[in-house]
């Protein structure tokens, strides 16, 4: 008997709740509830999509994450991993053969102009405007660093993709040695100021000199001097910081006067080479893998390196002897002020892809905060500010340096000729470092070749006699 009224009340409450829920649904609009990944992916169930990228932690993280997507959608995702240049070459051949082996691709953004100009990749507006495909909660306009997104994945005012990684370079140094009282005392006695992370290039040199102890197999710094793209990327930090640039343009997709042989550029290159005195003997045979290993083995005090390699040195105690002993900061400043260079890998959908919609769904899913956070914590470099704001990310030793550099990163050429510009500069920089030319000769040669390559839009601002 006593149960009766309470049962009735319960019934009434549940009816009221149901009514309110229905009302709420009606008011919040139908699509918010209607769109689910499972439904959007239903037409593509059972198909396989294939992609290709560089074999590094961010892609390995994606390999681990994809299972969840496969389970929810029934779409299988195959990921091919290759070394940097191999991943670029394979895509170039696939796109030119128009075979459509890859449903979406991951490529460095300097290649973007080539792809767009040749009609190899599709603008994504039509997928973003398609309500069947677009997740209403996905709004890259608000969720990504706009500057990074536009630099990495836009071309000529159109959206071609989303950043897979937003890579920057910053200064790595040994925090444990920096705080060693003996080192601090000795340094101050010799140079007259306190040992701290370098903020000017003079300080950078002083610190490198102080820590160079060849008898102990320990060096102040190391440069990536091999004839390889790594050399060019590293030098750009110096070039920008000394107030120079390659072309006088405002955006990566523009063509403009060649200024790569400006006095600032020459000074930056000469300074760059001066660091060889504090580097290991084989420094002209190093690229990013080598200097990363050098740091992991605790053989060098400071250098300038990529954020996607930081995790393996700073956090991964199994691979690194200096895990937990590292400090990170934005690169020292010269005439160019606070600068950084950005290089992103971007998701792109080739024109010849056979499963564009399914590919779009996967990319959209990867850009969700949960996946981005997960990938970032496993060595990725997200372009979402809310990932950096997450407490777990805040705790990572290199987050601040990463964010500071992201904020001041300068664009670099993404025009169709830009990979050829890189190749010319790599060759000339390497010739200078190995004493086959002086700095002015090397940069003059590069400027003349670049100007000729680009044609009338790129006269030389500093003509060569």
């Amino acid at each position, binding site marked *: 008997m006593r149960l009766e009224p309470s049962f009735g009340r319960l019934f009434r409450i549940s009816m009221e709740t149901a009514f309110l829920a229905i009302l709420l649904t009606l008011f919040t609009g139908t699509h918010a509830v209607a769109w689910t990944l499972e439904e959007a992916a239903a037409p593509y169930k059972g198909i396989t999509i294939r992609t290709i990228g560089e074999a590094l932690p961010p892609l390995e993280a994606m390999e681990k994450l994809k299972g969840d997507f496969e389970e929810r959608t029934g779409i299988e995702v195959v990921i091919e991993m290759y070394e940097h240049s191999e991943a670029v070459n394979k895509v170039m051949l696939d796109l030119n053969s128009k075979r459509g082996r890859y449903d979406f691709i991951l490529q460095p953004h300097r290649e973007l102009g080539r792809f767009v100009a040749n009609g190899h990749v599709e603008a994504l507006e039509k997928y973003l405007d398609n309500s069947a495909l677009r997740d209403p909660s996905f709004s890259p306009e608000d969720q990504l660093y706009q500057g990074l997104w536009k630099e990495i994945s836009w071309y000529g005012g159109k959206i071609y993709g989303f950043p897979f990684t937003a890579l920057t370079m910053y200064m790595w140094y040994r925090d444990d040695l920096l705080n060693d009282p003996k080192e601090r005392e000795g340094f101050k006695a010799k140079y007259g100021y306190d040992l701290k992370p370098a903020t000017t290039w003079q300080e950078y040199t002083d610190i490198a000199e102080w820590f160079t102890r*060849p008898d102990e197999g320990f060096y102040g710094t190391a440069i990536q001097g091999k004839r390889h793209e790594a050399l060019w990327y590293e030098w750009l930090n110096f070039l920008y910081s000394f107030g120079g640039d390659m072309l006088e343009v405002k955006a990566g997709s523009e063509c403009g006067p060649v200024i790569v042989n400006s006095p600032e550029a020459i000074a930056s290159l000469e300074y760059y080479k001066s660091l060889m005195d504090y580097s290991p*003997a084989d420094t002209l*045979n190093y690229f990013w893998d080598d200097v990363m290993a050098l740091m992991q083995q605790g053989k060098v005090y400071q250098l300038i390196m990529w954020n996607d390699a930081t995790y393996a040195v700073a956090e991964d105690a199994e691979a690194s002897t200096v895990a937990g002993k590292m400090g990170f900061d934005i690169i020292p400043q010269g005439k160019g002020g606070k600068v950084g260079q950005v290089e992103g890998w971007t998701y792109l959908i080739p024109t010849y892809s056979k499963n564009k919609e399914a590919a779009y769904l996967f990319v959209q899913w990867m850009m969700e905060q949960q996946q981005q956070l997960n990938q970032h914590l496993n060595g990725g470099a997200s372009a979402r500010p809310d990932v950096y704001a997450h407490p777990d990310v805040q705790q990572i030793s290199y987050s601040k340096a990463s964010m500071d550099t992201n904020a001041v990163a300068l664009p670099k050429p993404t025009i169709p000729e830009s990979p050829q510009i890189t*190749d010319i500069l790599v060759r000339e920089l390497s010739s200078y470092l190995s004493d*086959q030319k002086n700095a002015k000769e090397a940069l003059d040669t590069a400027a003349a070749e670049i100007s000729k390559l680009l044609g009338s839009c790129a006269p030389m601002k500093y003509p060569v006699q």
Partner: protein
Amino acid sequence: MINRRMGAIVDRGMAPLLLIPSVLLLLLILVGPFLYMVWTGFTDLHFALPGREGSFVGFDNFRRLVREDHIFWHSFLLTLKFVVWVVIIEFIAGFALALLLFHFIQKRRLFLTLLLVPMMLAPVAVGLIWKLLLQGDFGMVTYYLRLIGVIDERTAILSDSSLVLPAIMLIDLWQWTPFVTLIMLAGLLSLPREPYEAAVMDGAGPLQLFRDVTLPLLRPIIALVLLLRGIDAFKEFDKVFILTGGGPGIATELLSIYTYRVNFKDWDLGYGAVCAFMVYLVVLILCAVFYKAVFWGGGQRSRRAGFAR
């Protein structure tokens, strides 16, 4: 009788027919692509730049190669230098080793097997092994060279533009001298005994035997070895690609590396085809000149012999 004649007729008729498949195959995989490459050399085909779809440009690419491309000519001379040094030294060392094995070593089998190890390795593996051995900080060879004072603490072989090419030549010697030894030894073993016996009867000393009997008899074998090594050295790619990628600067940018760059880094396929064609042309001319030079004497002799008969 009739049967035999029929057989001959069938043979004569069948011979070209049986040749057709191999000729077709050659046309398909050798001549066809070659002609296509030559054609590409006359176009502006470029994979990276828009609007360069492969329209005919006449001799523009050839003009650019001859007049403007300093790096091509640098690479060309560098490659010639590499080929000449490597082939000469490999030949002398390989031949000497073969003579040593032939005259003084009874159990050759073991030595030969050991000797052939470098040659049996994949070229890429050779590159990787030497990359580690020559590594400037912890490489074993670097360590010992520093220990005996050949190089100083601040020198690393692959980072030094004056040492890197000789180093690559030495690696090539290490890899390919055994090949020369093998072929020369096979040649020595196949020589007839009679001319030697006759020469000894006539009072020839060891030096005379070598100069007047061994060398002339070995002439075709020597020609073969030099030709094979010459062509191979001209095409050298793997080791350099792995060890230096053409650097530092352009210190080891051999023609094959340069051609690779033009084609697969810049994707300038029209111009790249011309570079590749030039490599082919040079190899062809070298072979022809060389072949003539080596066989000229022999040819004279056999013609004279034929006449006498």
